[in-house]
């Protein structure tokens, strides 16, 4: 079994997703904490939406936008870029699902004072990373479960379980739980260091 390939691929995609959402996420968090503008509540609601929507529904929206017939997919296809069923779709699904956690956590830091925002930003990024690691619903829809190409830890666990390969699923379960534990433990340590 490709334990290392799957684990490495998942961590790499989650890191990529976190890197992508960091700049816009921090900007939005700062704006929400420090600015009063029209449509503020709307922005806040939209950003948080993936947190409460069924991930499968989020995946479906991404698929409808990005497939060959979708509004964005059509443009991408003419540029020769494929997203659906590739690693790009994995990263995108992870980014969308991780964004709310980053924004909400970083925002709390900005509302205290600027120099103290750092731990919150890092904690938010770690949370987004941890959420990305476990992303399943949107990924399976928009990226599928292609061995060696789009199979992340979460998706592989599901696929192995469904096809009766319990031992493989068990090994990946331990890997996934360990990484998630480390990420969350780190985020919590950072949060504790923040002055109350």
């Amino acid at each position: 079994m490709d334990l290392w390939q799957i684990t490495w691929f998942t961590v790499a995609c989650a890191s990529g997703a976190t890197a992508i959402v960091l700049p816009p996420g921090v900007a939005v968090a700062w704006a929400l904490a420090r600015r009063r503008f029209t449509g503020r509540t709307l922005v806040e609601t939209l950003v948080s939406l993936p947190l409460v929507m069924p991930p499968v529904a989020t995946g479906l929206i991404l698929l409808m936008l990005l497939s060959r017939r979708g509004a964005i997919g059509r443009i991408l296809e003419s540029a020769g870029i494929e997203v659906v069923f590739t690693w790009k779709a994995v990263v995108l699904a992870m980014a969308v699902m991780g964004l709310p956690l980053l924004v909400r956590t970083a925002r709390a830091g900005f509302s205290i004072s600027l120099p103290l925002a750092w731990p919150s930003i890092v904690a938010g990024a770690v949370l987004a990373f941890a959420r990305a690691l476990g992303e399943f619903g949107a990924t399976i829809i928009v990226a599928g479960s292609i061995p060696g190409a789009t199979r992340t830890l979460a998706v592989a666990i599901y696929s192995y379980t469904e096809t009766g390969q319990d031992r493989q699923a068990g090994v990946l379960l331990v890997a996934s739980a360990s990484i998630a534990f480390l990420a969350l433990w780190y985020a919590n340590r950072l949060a504790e260091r923040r002055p109350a």
Partner: protein
Amino acid sequence: MFATLLAIWLAFACAPQNAPERPAITVSAAVSLTTALTAIAQEYARAGSGTIRFNFAASNVLARQIVNGAPVDLFISADAAQMDVVARAGLLREQSRVNLLTNQLAVVVPNDRQRTFASINDLAGQAYRRIAIGDPQAVPAGVYAKQYLEREGLWSAIEPRVVPSASVRAALVAVESGAADAAIVYRTDARVSTRASVAWVVAADRGPRIVYPAAIVRTSTEPAESQRFIDFLRSAAGARVFERFGFGSAR
């Protein structure tokens, strides 16, 4: 907020419920049967014969649910292998097991890229970069598709382009949404799709023998009702509906 939730809950909890004359049974059935069985169950209920609750999924998923203790009365699988998984766990009423239906494979392509294959070898062409099939590790439609491609000597050429799907309907949806360039599904799935068209039908003598077995689960609390439903599925009325959706009778 709490009051609102309470009100909604009460509205549902206290809604009048008509007691069914006959106990409902739970049928776990291969997802490829969704359309046909739903139609048959409507007929069954209209005739006052009883209520059927369906749980549709890939047969390998259903088999694992039953093995893990899911309260199911009747299991209809898309292949013998998954029925055997339940049998090996000692969870079938073996004497109730019958072969119900037959089916055929078909290759579908998106409607806006409609074409007809001259032979299955066309599927190995460059235009088909992503080919969705049920996960060939366990999903019956994928297992059948792999067997067929192996027999045609095409599996090694096509395997790198395979998108394994969680069920045969998921493979169909991949083509319908334009995410995959082609899919190997059952002919019956192709028939109910409006956004995918058939490029190739696998002749019955070229493809694997596709048989849907049905059996009552040993832990069923309604074995008699389950047997009645099996009998109805095998009756002339049941066969008519299956035939309408493109299934063959296994007898």
